[in-house]
């Protein structure tokens, strides 16, 4: 393989400035939002269009050079970090809205558009794009497609995969293919469905047709402080069981509240004497919304909520959400490094698992902050640590694995919205058999037979018959 030939080919077609190669420029690309995994790419390509992405991919394909797609680099699983010398193809220059069809409720956008800009572009028509990861003011829709990103509102509206109608993909051989249709008609296998959440290993999404949903006329945002973390989890179960489908049900524990309230940027006015706060958002028609507010308030009081804060204005609503969406950022003040889990369990197992997480953290002498999508059973135990302390790193690693093992034991799984990437590939065998992984490997191999497109992600390496791509790479190297 020849990197120089690939870079020369891309520069001849896209111009010299479309490829970054200076060390100083490449340094910012050495990791995504998980700083634990680092590898500086050989070069970064910044294409402006589908055709330019295809030029880069074809050049890599012809020369046998591995490449890694990247959006804004906000991913939380190391998915946009190379595992070996590779080219990075970043879609950040592709951020146009190509079409909005208000009547049919879809928009076609380029992959590099920032998530929140899609909703801004269609707000005048009373529509919005529902998936709202916490990083939505920075992260790209292309990255969301790769990771099948969630967000607080996917409790009611579903995750990214439920909102992607079609994807224009540059396949690993450089061919451009449209998967899915704006009208949701499917002929043959649902390749669009398999592509969403494939973490950039099946090709590069360049243009995306997203479903738009009506912006609800009535929104109520409520905050319930609880004297016990357990009680807040029990209240969530009771709300779900009551038949109400809130737009969001989020819990922040005491450690998270303290981190948020100590942050000048993210301070939200949460009560610092509470063991947990439950953030509830209800939306829908004006007609029935107050009945829902009353029901949720009654349930929370029955479960020991100390009081209810109700956002009266858009500013107050934004403040309540600022603390939630800024929680990860706020934790950055606590310690140099942050280990984020993304486990998910059946919702009825939430109270016991939260107790266990707290217990595991205490047993390893670690500072664990819980902020999570309680309505979905999706936990984010965040462990703050200092990577210069080898003993602490080892305890973080052990605690992390214990949490995963406990969640899997109650029927849960590794990741609800962050993806597997590099970060959790080694744990895949805890939830899947070798045969299960073999099916996944078959899918990857059909799309990406030479394993040049984002190699080394999702499936564990070493051992197992699903690890065909690793062995093939080794063979190619030997040749």
């Amino acid at each position: 393989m020849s990197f120089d030939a690939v870079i020369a080919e891309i520069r001849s077609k896209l111009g010299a400035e479309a490829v970054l190669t200076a060390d100083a420029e490449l340094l910012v690309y050495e990791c995504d939002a998980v700083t634990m995994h680092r590898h500086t790419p050989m070069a970064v390509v910044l294409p402006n269009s589908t055709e330019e992405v295809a030029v880069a991919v074809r050049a890599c394909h012809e020369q046998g050079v591995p490449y890694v797609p990247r959006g804004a680099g906000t991913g939380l699983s190391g998915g946009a970090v190379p595992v070996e010398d590779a080219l990075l193809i970043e879609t950040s220059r592709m951020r146009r809205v190509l079409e909005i069809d208000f009547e049919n409720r879809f928009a076609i956008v380029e992959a590099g558009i920032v998530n929140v800009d899609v909703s801004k572009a269609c707000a005048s028509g009373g529509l919005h794009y529902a998936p709202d990861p916490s990083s939505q003011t920075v992260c790209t829709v292309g990255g969301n497609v790769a990771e099948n990103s969630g967000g607080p509102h996917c409790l009611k509206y579903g995750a990214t995969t439920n909102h992607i109608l079609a994807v224009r993909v540059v396949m690993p051989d450089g061919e451009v293919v449209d998967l899915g249709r704006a009208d949701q008609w499917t002929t043959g296998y649902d390749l669009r469905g398999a592509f969403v959440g494939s973490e950039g290993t099946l090709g590069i999404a360049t243009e995306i047709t997203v479903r738009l949903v009506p912006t609800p006329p009535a929104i109520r945002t409520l905050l319930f402080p609880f004297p016990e973390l357990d009680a807040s989890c029990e209240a969530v179960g009771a709300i779900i069981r009551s038949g109400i489908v809130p737009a969001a049900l989020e819990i922040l524990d005491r450690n998270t509240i303290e981190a948020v309230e100590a942050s000048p940027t993210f301070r939200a006015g949460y009560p610092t004497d509470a063991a947990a706060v439950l953030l509830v958002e209800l939306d829908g028609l004006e007609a029935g919304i107050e009945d829902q507010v009353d029901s949720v308030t009654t349930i929370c009081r029955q479960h020991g909520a100390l009081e209810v804060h109700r956002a009266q204005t858009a500013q107050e609503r934004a403040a309540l959400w600022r603390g939630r969406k800024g929680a990860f950022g706020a934790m950055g003040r606590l310690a140099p490094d942050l280990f984020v889990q993304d486990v998910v369990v059946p919702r009825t197992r939430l109270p016991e698992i939260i107790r266990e997480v707290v217990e595991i953290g205490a047993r390893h002498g670690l500072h664990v902050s819980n902020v999570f999508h309680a309505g979905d059973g999706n936990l984010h135990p965040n462990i703050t640590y200092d990577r210069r302390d080898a003993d602490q790193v080892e305890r973080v690693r052990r605690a992390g694995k214990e949490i995963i093992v406990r969640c899997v034991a109650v029927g849960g799984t590794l990741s609800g919205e962050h993806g597997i990437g590099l970060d959790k590939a080694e744990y895949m065998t805890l939830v899947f058999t070798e045969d299960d992984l073999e099916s996944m490997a078959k899918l990857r191999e059909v799309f990406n037979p030479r394993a040049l497109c984002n190699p080394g992600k999702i499936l564990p390496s070493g051992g197992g018959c699903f690890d065909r791509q690793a062995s093939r790479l080794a063979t190619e190297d030997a040749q």
Partner: protein
Amino acid sequence: MTAAEPSPSALDALQAVLPGDAVRAGRDSDAIAGHVPSWVAAPPDEASLRDVLTWARQQQQAVAPVGGRTQLAIGNPPDRLDGIVSTQRLSGIVDYPAGDLTITVRAGTTAAEIAETVEAEGQWSPLDALSGDSTVGGLLAVGQSGPWRPGLGALRDQVLETRVVHPDGRVTRSGARVVKNVTGYDLNKLFIGSLGTLGVLTEVCLRLRPRPEATATLLLGTTDALTAAEITALLRRAGLDPTGLAFVSPRHDAPVIDRPPGVVLGLLKLAGAAADVAWLRDNISTELPAGTTWTLLEEPEVEEPIWQWLRVHLRRETTLSGRLGTLPMQAGTLAASLPVEVDWVLRPWEGVVDWYWSGPTEQAAEISAAIHVAAQAHQAGRLLIHAPSAVKASGDVFGERPPGFETMRGLRDAFDPERVLNPGRFLHGL
């Protein structure tokens, strides 16, 4: 008719693989598109289903998986058919933690049983099947949603976990029994709508939703498909989203009192909190264009039968029938452009038009061609469901090859290289 020669040797060999009562010789009534299978197996558990498939692969037998046999008209005629594997004995609830709003069932469980089970807990099944006899495995294999898709969501979005037996003998699981999951590739999406060509579903976990506090149905009377489209546009612009909306062309036998000739019947389902349903009902009735009549059905005993009737109406067998799919705001003009002798059910919210024609077989090709032209003018996807064998054989029932077809072929080669499962029935020889 191209019935396979009975093959006693295959039947004998299979009887050595399976428990005695689980396999029998095929009969005429087992036929799929005129192909009578030599053998029919109904494995009592997943392990014996795996044994049948691995045996079939070794013996180069062509196998059609079946559930409730309610949707066998969908697909091209098989290239070959040696045996049928029924999932009907793989039935029952595996796990129903009602507080999680999820249910795990074996693939042969019927839509009716699932609906009954979850309704007892105040929840709604997402299957919305046209027939209660359809099994969950069959519904997912075909992947078509019912008339309440606008409210319930598409079937593909309700599946959380699947277990599948592949022809190579692997039994695999993908997903998990949780409502949010990105752990590994989403293979569930591949199996849904794959017509059983990648493996046979044995177990499925579905997402449930709470049964709404109130429901109501507005029966609409309007003049034609274009007015139906106008009604749809008004509702969409006003944000008055229904749980289901279907318009039925005038020749129908719906059990409604007020049925003047030449009138298009509309069924509009509302569901949600009582106050929301009342508000929607009042606002929709004032938004309707002049000339549209409406009747409100609020009691379950009058509301349920009309939707039950629609489901039967949607699945009826005529000389020719099919389904077209386009954008919501084009679906009305698509229905309006069909030949006048063709009946239709327009579901504009989903952009789906089901069409039906009965008449002499020799005219079927001409009608089918006219529908093809209308579909092309609207860039509509098409599926031919019922047709005389000559018409089915003259083209592919799934329409043109979609983009990504070579990747689809690659998947079929990877999961079923010998074409054990449903050879010829899926699109373009997959």
